[in-house]
């Protein structure tokens, strides 16, 4: 079998345990969040709407290869966008793929990027209640992520305090294109609250804070932007480490979502090499940068790397560390990874169990 093609025979259906760390729930429309929004903000939405720092603020920064960046087969029969039907999510994904726990990552409406900070905070509050009632309350396999409006650290911390201890939520969610690099001190109150409540912070591809999607400026094509997710994640990792976040908050845990994996070993090597030469500029970084990464940062697997030779995938996982990888599908988005076929290398049963279930079970403290 080549590295890119499936065998012709179907694998024997076996009981598989899977934790999916990246599922995108959607609202059918803005009205779905109205029951959780104060009247003042419903009125604001009607009159002024959502204000993000790009044109057509209900659109995505780049047109995707499919509407809503979705799998073509994920549209609910009853209408609404992919990800808006719990029933279809169960039939199409949770049940057949053996998902024991699924972590919700709501992306649209982007409360963390809203220019009106008070509206952003109100929207996080509403969307968090929406997650808890509309999803987690009706499907115990699902768990929520506490959305925060990170540009208002005070508002973000208040929202963390309000949700901490609620078993509906397992982490905090921030999108990477923040106003400033994420390690900057303006965000430290959020990190302090996260560490105090032992809530990991997930960084999922996205964010529309006006910065170009690539380091070289705004690109022409979605395909270019799709590569830039790795750049934005590298910027986050470098900022967190060199600003000294892990010195100040040693128990804080991050999980980088959907940023690719192949760059991690080379970034570690370059950071270590530069630290050996220029450590004096950042004396608060007392240890090798790769050590902070290896202790405090995890990565979700989708979109899984698909190298030509299976051995290269095994080598990559050896270098990143098998215990750092949390399985994710990205359902219902087009670049979905199927738990049966995502890993194109001969993994042992123990390795598969670790990637598909064990690491995330340990990371999130699931029983």
């Amino acid at each position: 079998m080549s590295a890119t093609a499936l065998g012709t025979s179907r694998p024997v259906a076996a009981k598989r345990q899977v934790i999916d760390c990246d599922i995108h729930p959607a609202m059918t429309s803005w009205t779905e969040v109205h029951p959780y929004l104060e009247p003042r903000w419903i009125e604001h939405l009607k009159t002024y709407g959502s204000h993000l720092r790009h044109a057509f603020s209900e659109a995505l920064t780049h047109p995707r290869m499919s509407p809503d960046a979705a799998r073509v087969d994920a549209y609910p029969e009853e209408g609404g966008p992919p990800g808006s039907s719990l029933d279809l999510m169960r039939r199409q994904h949770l049940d057949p793929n053996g998902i024991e726990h699924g972590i919700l990552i709501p992306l649209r409406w982007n409360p963390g990027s809203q220019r009106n900070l008070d509206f952003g905070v109100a929207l996080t509050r509403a969307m968090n209640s929406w997650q808890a009632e509309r999803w987690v309350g009706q499907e115990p396999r699902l768990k929520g992520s506490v959305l925060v409006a990170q540009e208002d650290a005070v508002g973000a911390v208040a929202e963390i305090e309000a949700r901490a201890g609620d078993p509906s939520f397992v982490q905090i969610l921030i999108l990477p294109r923040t106003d400033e690099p994420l390690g900057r001190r303006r965000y430290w109150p959020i990190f302090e609250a996260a560490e105090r409540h032992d809530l990991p912070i997930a960084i999922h591809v996205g964010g529309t804070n006006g910065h170009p999607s690539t380091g070289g400026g705004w690109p022409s094509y979605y395909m270019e932007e799709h590569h830039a997710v790795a750049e934005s994640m590298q910027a986050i990792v470098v900022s967190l480490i060199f600003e000294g976040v892990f010195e100040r908050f040693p128990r804080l845990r991050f999980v980088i979502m959907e940023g690719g994996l192949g760059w991690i070993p080379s970034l570690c090597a370059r950071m270590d090499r530069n630290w050996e030469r220029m450590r004096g500029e950042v004396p608060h970084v007392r240890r090798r940068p790769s050590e902070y990464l290896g202790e405090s940062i995890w990565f979700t697997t989708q979109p899984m790397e698909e190298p030509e030779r299976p051995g290269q995938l095994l080598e990559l996982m050896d270098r990143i560390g098998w215990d750092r990888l949390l399985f994710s599908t990205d359902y219902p988005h087009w670049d979905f990874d199927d738990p049966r076929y995502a890993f194109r290398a001969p993994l042992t049963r123990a390795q598969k169990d670790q990637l598909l279930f064990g690491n995330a079970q340990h990371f999130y403290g699931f029983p």
Partner: protein
Amino acid sequence: MARHVVATVDEIPPGARKRVEVEGRGIAVFNIGGAYFAIADRCPHEGASLCDGRLTALVEASEPGRYVLSRRGELVRCPWHGWEFDIRTGRSWCDPKRLKVRSYETSVEVGGAEATELQAETFPVSVEARFVVVEA
């Protein structure tokens, strides 16, 4: 290799497709301009149903800014990752040697004597109707 009646011709008009099961195998049957083509209904990449994919044309460029569209509706894009497969051959556009789906012979038969000799998977074969046959 047995011949299987999988549909009446009316069920799959030009531009349409139908997913059929033949001896436990999913097969996607397409009608392109009145001709029928059948390919395995399972993307060799991660297993999605190709029957759920959108039909597309071949878009090529001899140089940046010069686009040529041809073969409208003759390729199917996988509903997940967008791999394009040539419905006539089952071969993917980007990696035709290694990434391909099995392609099956098809024919259109009129009822009568044929109808008694062939087995339909899911419906009775009437003597009058014209129907699509897949060799699988």
